C-alpha cells in the first residue's frame, strides 16, 4: 500500500515537468478552447505533431498517454458512432435504415480526434506532469484576486492539500479495516445485495469515525503550530515564473496561432 501515487502523476524532470503550474493551467485551457475550432486535417495533424514532440520531451511512455484515454474511451467511440450515422450525403455503405456517408465518417473521425486531443493535452500539461499539490497551489494563486471579494481561496487550497496529504493514510486504513472485518467473517465479494451493503457499513462507519478523529487531532495540531488562517502568513513555496516558463508559453501560443491560422485561412 505504500507505493501508491496520487492521480496519475508521472515523475520526471523535463521542461514540461518543471514549468510553473499556473502557466500550464492557462496553456491547457487556451489549447483546449483552440481545439474546438479545428476541423481541417492539416491543423489537426500539425497540432498532433506538436503534442507528439511534447510527449517525447517529457519522456512519458506512450502507454501512459493511452491509459489516460481509457476512462473516456467509451465516450469517444459513442460520439464516433453517432456521428457516423447521422449525416446525409454521399452514401458509403447502408443496411436498412442505417446509412454511413463520407460526411458522417469524416465528422465521426473529427469528433474522436478532437476528444482524444483534448484529453491528451490536459494529461501532458497537467495530470501527468504536475503533482496534485502543485495544481492545488496554482489554483490558490489563480483564485487569489477573488479573496478581496471574500472568496476563501486560502482555505480551499489548504483543504485540498490536507486532503491530498491524507489520501495514503485513508487508503491504508481502509485496507486494514477490510482485513479486520474479513477476519470476523465479513464477506464483501459474495452474498446478496443486503449482505454486501451490510458489509460496506462495517467498513464505512469505522472509516468515518477515524476521519473525524483525525480531523479533530489535526485541527489541534495545526493550532498548536500557531495556525491562524491566511492572515500574516508567508509561504515556503512561492510560485515564481522564470524565463523558460515565458518561453514555453510563447512557443505553445505560437503553435496554437499557427494551427488556427491553418484552420481559418484555407489554401
Amino acid at each position, binding site marked *: 500500500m505504500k507505493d501508491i501515487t496520487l492521480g496519475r502523476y508521472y515523475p520526471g524532470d523535463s521542461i514540461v515537468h518543471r514549468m510553473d503550474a499556473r502557466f500550464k493551467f492557462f496553456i491547457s485551457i487556451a489549447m483546449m478552447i483552440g481545439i474546438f475550432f479545428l476541423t481541417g486535417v492539416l491543423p489537426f495533424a500539425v497540432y498532433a505533431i506538436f503534442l507528439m514532440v511534447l510527449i517525447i520531451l517529457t519522456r512519458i511512455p506512450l502507454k501512459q498517454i493511452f491509459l489516460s484515454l481509457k476512462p473516456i474511451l467509451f465516450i469517444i467511440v459513442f460520439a464516433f458512432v453517432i456521428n457516423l450515422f447521422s449525416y446525409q450525403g454521399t452514401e458509403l455503405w447502408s443496411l436498412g435504415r442505417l446509412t454511413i456517408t463520407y460526411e458522417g465518417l469524416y465528422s465521426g473521425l473529427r469528433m474522436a480526434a478532437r476528444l482524444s486531443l483534448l484529453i491528451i493535452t490536459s494529461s501532458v500539461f497537467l495530470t501527468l506532469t504536475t503533482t496534485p499539490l502543485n495544481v492545488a497551489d496554482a489554483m490558490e494563486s489563480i483564485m487569489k484576486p477573488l479573496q478581496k471579494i471574500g472568496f476563501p481561496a486560502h482555505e480551499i487550497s489548504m483543504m485540498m492539500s490536507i486532503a491530498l496529504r491524507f489520501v495514503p493514510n485513508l487508503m491504508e486504513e481502509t485496507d486494514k*479495516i477490510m482485513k479486520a472485518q474479513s477476519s470476523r467473517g465479513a464477506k464483501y465479494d459474495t452474498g446478496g445485495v443486503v449482505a454486501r451493503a451490510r458489509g460496506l457499513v462495517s467498513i464505512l462507519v469505522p472509516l468515518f469515525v477515524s476521519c473525524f478523529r*483525525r480531523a479533530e487531532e489535526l485541527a489541534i495540531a495545526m493550532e498548536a503550530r500557531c495556525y491562524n488562517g491566511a492572515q500574516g*502568513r508567508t509561504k515556503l*513555496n512561492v510560485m515564481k515564473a522564470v524565463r523558460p516558463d515565458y518561453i514555453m508559453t510563447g512557443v505553445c501560443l505560437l503553435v496554437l496561432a499557427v494551427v488556427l491560422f491553418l484552420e481559418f485561412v484555407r489554401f
Partner: protein
Amino acid sequence: MKPFIELKNVFFEYKLNGPDNLKAVNDVSMTVIKGSHVAVLGRNGSGKSTLARLIAGLEQPGSGTITVGGYEHDGGAASLEIRRKCGIVFQNPDNQIIGTTVEEDVAFGPENLGVPREEMIVRIDDALKAVGLTEKKKSAPHLLSGGQKQKLAIAGILAMDPECFILDEATSMLDPSARKDFIALVTSLVKERNMTVINITHDMEEAVLSDHVYIMSEGTIVRHGHPAEVFDDIDLLKAQGLDVPVHMDIAQKVSDLTGRARTPLADFTREGAAEDIIRMCKGISCLKTTEGDSTGKYNGRVCEEKTHETVLDVSELSYTYSRDTVFANDALSEVSMSIRRGELFGVIGQTGSGKSTLVQHFNGLIKPQSGKVTVLGFDTSRKDGIREIRKHAGLLFQYPEHQLFEETVYKDIAFGPKCLGMDEDSIHASVMNALEIVGLGEEYASKSPFELSGGQKRRVAIAGIIAMEPEILILDEPAAGLDPAGREDILRFVNDLADSGTTVVLVSHNMDDIAKMADRVLVLKGGKVMSCTSPEELFSENDVSEFGISLPVITEFMMFMRSFVPGLDVSGFTADACAESIVSVLSDGKVVSA
C-alpha cells in the same frame, strides 16, 4: 529564579450531555523552572492531556491563571505567543503532519508566524539537520516510519524557535528502539538549547529521567517531587495504576521475603537497589514464605510436542510485497514453524521484520506465494477452507477499537458470530460469555461502543473475536497504547484464555510481557527466523541484540545483579520469581517453604 511556567489554581471542565460537567483539571497549581525536565504520570483520563493543552495555550482555563515565559493566557495574542514558545508533540504520529512533504511540514509553523522565506529555508535546514531527517527533506510523510514521523514533529517545533517541548504520550505508539531513539534526541536537544520539557508518559524509564514528577488522578495532582522520592512510595504507584520500576519492585519483594525494610530512597537507581537487596539478604537463614512454584511465569503450561497436536504449521513460507516491480520487498523468506494446541506462542522482532505479514497468513488474509500454511488441517491457499479457517482462527490487528461500528456493544460483538451463521441463542450466549471474559459487565451490552473509554473499547473489540469462539486466537499488540493498569488487565485475561485451552499467538514489542506469558517465542529479523524456543532459553545466555531485539528490562536487571551475585539464576520474569532466586542464592540457609 523566576518560574518559566506557572499555574495558579487552574480549573477546566468539559461540557457533557448530562447535568454534570467533567472536571478534567481541578484546582491545579504548579511551577516549572526554565531548563527543567518534568514528567506527568497518571491513568488514562486523569487529566494529563488536558493539562498539556492548557499549558500549550490550546485550551482556556475555566478559572485560575497560567503564565508561560512571562505571558499570561488571554485566548488572544499572548496565547499565540505561548503556543510558539511551547511546542507540543502528540500521541498519533500521523495526525499531526500537515505538509505533503517533510520540508513543507516543517515550514508550516514558520509560515504561520510570517517568517520571511529566506529565513524559513535556513530554519528548515537547521531543524531537519538537528533531528537527522535532512535526507528525507522531499519525502512524502506516509513513507516515514513512526519514529521518523515523531522526529518530524520535533523538527516542525524547532523551526518555530521554541523554549519548551511538551510531549503528550509522544512515544506510546512507537516500538522500543524508536522510543529510545526519540527520547535520546529530545534529551540532547534540550540540553543543547536549555529548553524545558514536560513529558506526559506511562513509561517509567522515561519518567526517571525527569527532575520532578507530578502524579495526576481525577484532575488533581496527588503527589509531586523528585522521582527518587515519589517512586519510593511503591504503594502509591500501585494505587495510581502505574508501573513500578522493576528493580524497585524486586527490592520490595526481597524486603517482603526477608522481613527487612528497604533503605528509604536507596532503591531509585539500579546500583542502589542492588546494594540494598544484598544488604537485606545478608545473614538471612530462613525465608518467610514462598507460595506455589516459582517458574517465573503467570502460569506454567506444558505443551509437549508428543502430547499436543500441531494446530498451525508453516513450511518454507516466503512472501514478497509488490512482486515483479521495482518496489519488490521481501517480507518473509523460508519461514518454517509450528504451533501446538494450547500454547501461548510469542512472535517478536523489530518493526518491519515480517511479524505482521506472517500472522496475516495464519487466517488466510494473505495467501502464501511459496511454501505452505496449514491451519487445523486446512491449507490456506485453497479457497474452500477459508471460511473454516476464519471460524477457528481469530485475528485481531493493532488498535482494534478502530474497527467498531455498531450502535451497541452487543451488536458489535455479535457481528462475527452472525457472519459465521450461528443461531440467535448461541450468539447471545457467546456474546455474554465474551463480555465476561474481557471483564465488562452485562450493563455494557446496551451501551454505544463510541461512548466508552479507550481501554473499554479495546476490550469490546477483543470480545468481538472471542465471541467467535476461535481455537486459535492471534493478537497483534493487544495492549499497545494503554496505561499500565489497562495493559495488565488485558494481558491477564489473554493469559487466562491460554490456560483454559485456547491456543494464543501473541505479537508484541514488549519483551517483559512476552517473557512472562509465552511458552515459546519466535524471533523474526528481516523476514527470517532467528530463533524459536522458550523465553528462558532465548533470554538467558544469548546476545539477543543480534536478533534486533532487546532483553526484558527485568532480565537486564537480573544480569546486572549477577555481576554482584555469581551463580544467580536469571530465568525468572516476574518480580516474585526474581526476588526468590536472589534470596535463595544470597541467604545462608536454604529456601524453606512455609
